[in-house]
């Protein structure tokens, strides 16, 4: 690799040619603040927070896009630099809705943090013309408040990276604002509700629709039996809401917190993930043996499902008809469990704690009410749960470790790894391979489908057959893979997760700054905690889950049965026509 010598803040360093000043400084452990910058996705040098002084240059340069050159002398921290950054912040604040006290992002707002760091003393030093675009709360999962938008364009980049691209920059000058085409509402364009725009927003401009009040009301309603389920990934991300390190597994504390919030039962979506595998593996085997539609494509990710309905309606037949684990959980709770416990399903209130904003859309879908009542009543994001815990003044870090309730809290390692890209595929293979070969697997680790690559492919020999599988996460990967399938490439089984890296990086997860997202492999760190948990589990194959066996014995009979179809499967709709695009 060609190297160049540069001097940063008086320290000599050799860095690869072509590095930006921002990257070069990181070799020395010097962090240059950024705001609009997202590595590889939004390198536009627009916000000017990262400006630095380069000896001989006429003006300050933006470190995020300025390449280093041999002999360059850089000062990242001179008075001129600090003054410029402070002025930039004051100018951003001049058009910003500074209602920080009531802002949901107070404490995690990147603008707020920079203002503190750079000593902005008067947030009203300048008063600019305000954007008159009204709040868009048309979508079921999120709210956009343009008065808090700083036009960093990170959401636009995230949306484009998802191959959705329904938001962009409209008009110019003081009128510049983020919006949809022709300024129609978000629910009139093919937004898939993935929430990647939200987790990439530095301020409170983009937020999930907060449903915590609905849950609090249910918890305070004595007629309601309130059941909570936690998605696989929540246990390795919730700790971040309480300043714990990325990748901390907080399963026990999470359960303890939920119990203290007053939920009648604390169950685990991992159980339903195991149930999903029973149905999906059976569906896969059935399609292979009986000439059904292949490749079968997983249906756990509601963002992906909505994307498929909008952009690939011709692939809807390929989707597994399995409901997602969240919905299967609700369905089995309000049917089998309700009957077993003698509770009327109308009195059961099921809350899902999800890594996902699209889950808010999913709970409202048609054909998701096995008991005659919605399978799930409210889906909260990890962030909303964090908020409920804080509001209840629970000292999360000091909580003891507690265990899930039975029986819907029983799970296997297979269910746990659903939270990472490749997890559903691996879990399904563990069960399908064992069923097809009719003997126990020697090795349950299907490592080829792990990792954060956008597309992973493998061929497994199962019962004499070459099973070609592909796994993708992020809708850009889904787009690429669907095009390949349409062009005739053969796969038997495809897993798609809507968010890059899978649920661990879902749109409902705790927000990390763009600096962290750019330079820490968030997806891998969170996923590693899930794979570690899987390895430690006594049972690692879904079909060995004793609670699953019980549900089939008492209620469902066998995977794919008539009852299973009624309770655990759903249908999809072609949404390609009813939107503006």
């Amino acid at each position, binding site marked *: 690799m060609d190297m160049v010598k540069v001097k940063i803040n008086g320290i000599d360093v050799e860095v690869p040619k072509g590095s930006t000043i921002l990257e070069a400084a990181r070799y020395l452990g010097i962090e240059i603040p950024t705001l609009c910058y997202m590595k590889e996705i939004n390198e536009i040098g627009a916000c000017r927070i990262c400006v630095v002084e380069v000896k001989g240059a006429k003006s300050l340069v933006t470190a995020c896009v300025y390449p280093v050159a041999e002999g360059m002398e850089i000062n990242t921290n001179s008075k001129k630099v600090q003054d410029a950054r402070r002025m930039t912040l004051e100018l951003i604040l001049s058009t910003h809705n500074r209602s920080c006290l009531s802002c949901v992002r107070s404490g995690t707002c990147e603008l707020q943090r920079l203002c503190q760091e750079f000593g902005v003393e008067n947030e009203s030093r300048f008063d600019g013309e305000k954007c008159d675009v009204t709040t868009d709360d048309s979508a079921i999962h999120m709210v956009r408040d343009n008065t808090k938008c700083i036009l960093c364009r990170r959401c636009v980049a995230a949306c*484009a990276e998802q191959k959705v*691209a*329904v*938001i*962009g*920059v*409209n*008009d*110019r000058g003081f*009128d510049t604002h983020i919006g*949809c*085409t*022709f*300024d129609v509402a978000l629910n009139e*364009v093919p937004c898939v509700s993935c929430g990647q725009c939200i987790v990439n927003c530095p301020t409170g401009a983009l937020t999930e629709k907060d449903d915590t009040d609905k849950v609090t009301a249910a918890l305070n309603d004595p007629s309601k039996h309130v059941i909570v389920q936690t998605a696989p990934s929540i246990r390795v991300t919730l700790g971040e809401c309480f300043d714990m390190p990325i990748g901390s597994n907080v399963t026990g504390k999470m359960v303890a917190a939920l119990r203290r919030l007053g939920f009648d039962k604390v169950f685990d979506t991992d159980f339903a993930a195991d149930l999903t595998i029973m149905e999906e593996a059976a569906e896969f085997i059935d399609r292979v043996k009986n000439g059904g539609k292949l490749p079968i494509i997983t249906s756990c990710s509601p963002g992906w499902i909505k994307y498929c309905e909008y952009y690939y309606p011709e692939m809807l037949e390929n989707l597994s008809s399995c409901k997602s684990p969240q919905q299967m959980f609700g369905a089995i709770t309000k049917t089998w469990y309700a009957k077993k416990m003698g509770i009327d399903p109308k009195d059961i209130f099921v809350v899902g704690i999800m890594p996902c904003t699209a889950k808010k859309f999913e709970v409202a879908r048609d054909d998701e009410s096995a008991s005659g009542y919605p399978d799930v009543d409210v889906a909260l994001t990890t962030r909303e749960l964090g908020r409920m815990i804080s509001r209840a003044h629970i000292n999360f870090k000091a909580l003891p470790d507690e265990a899930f309730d039975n029986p819907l809290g029983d799970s296997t390692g297979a269910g746990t790894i659903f939270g990472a890209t490749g997890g559903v595929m691996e879990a399904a293979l563990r069960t399908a391979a064992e069923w097809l070969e009719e003997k126990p697997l020697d090795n349950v680790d299907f490592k080829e489908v792990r990792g954060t690559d956008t597309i992973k492919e493998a061929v497994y020999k199962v019962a004499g057959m070459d099973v070609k599988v592909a796994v993708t996460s992020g809708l850009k990967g889904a787009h690429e893979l669907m095009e390949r399938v349409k062009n005739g490439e053969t796969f038997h089984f495809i897993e798609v997760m809507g968010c890059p890296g899978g649920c661990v990086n879902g749109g409902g997860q705790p927000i990390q700054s763009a600096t962290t997202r750019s330079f820490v492999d968030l997806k891998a760190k969170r996923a590693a905690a899930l794979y570690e948990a899987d390895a430690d589990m006594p049972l690692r194959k879904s079909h060995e889950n004793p609670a699953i066996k019980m549900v089939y014995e008492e209620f469902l009979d066998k995977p794919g049965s008539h009852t299973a179809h009624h309770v655990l499967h759903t249908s999809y709709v072609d949404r390609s026509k009813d939107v*503006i*695009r």
Partner: protein
Amino acid sequence: MKKRKSTLPFAGTKEQEAQLMTVIDEHRGDPGALMPVMQKAQDIYGYLPMEVQSMIAKGLGTSIEKVYGVATFYSQFALTPKGRYTISVCLGTACYVKGAQKLVDAITKSLGIGPDECTEDGLFSLEACRCIGACGLAPVMTINDEVYGRLTEKDIDGILAKYKA
């Protein structure tokens, strides 16, 4: 100022669509194809309504939001149709001090359309333009290629009547 959007129904013809498709085919795959295609689309349709932007987005494999973002950034792109007669009132410095704004107001009162709007019958559209170099005749307006100078708001109805006939 935010761009005005048309509220009139789209009335594109098959011929116009065929022309646009030819333009798109010529530019498909070119980096930076969007702006030239949008310019030609505006030549064909006179403006860039949602239906046209959608065709451009699909044709070039980009998003309609991206097309709209460009359309609202550059003043050369219009989101409202032109009438058979385009009334252009000069709001350059000389015309402005001689009362051009009163002409705009009078036209708005007479036709019920503001700047960048088109009458429902498609006859007139109104726009404000910058100096057309006829300051000696200020205040000036043009209707298509006809120039009218030294106007007062009292002249407006009479002039418009000629075109309504």
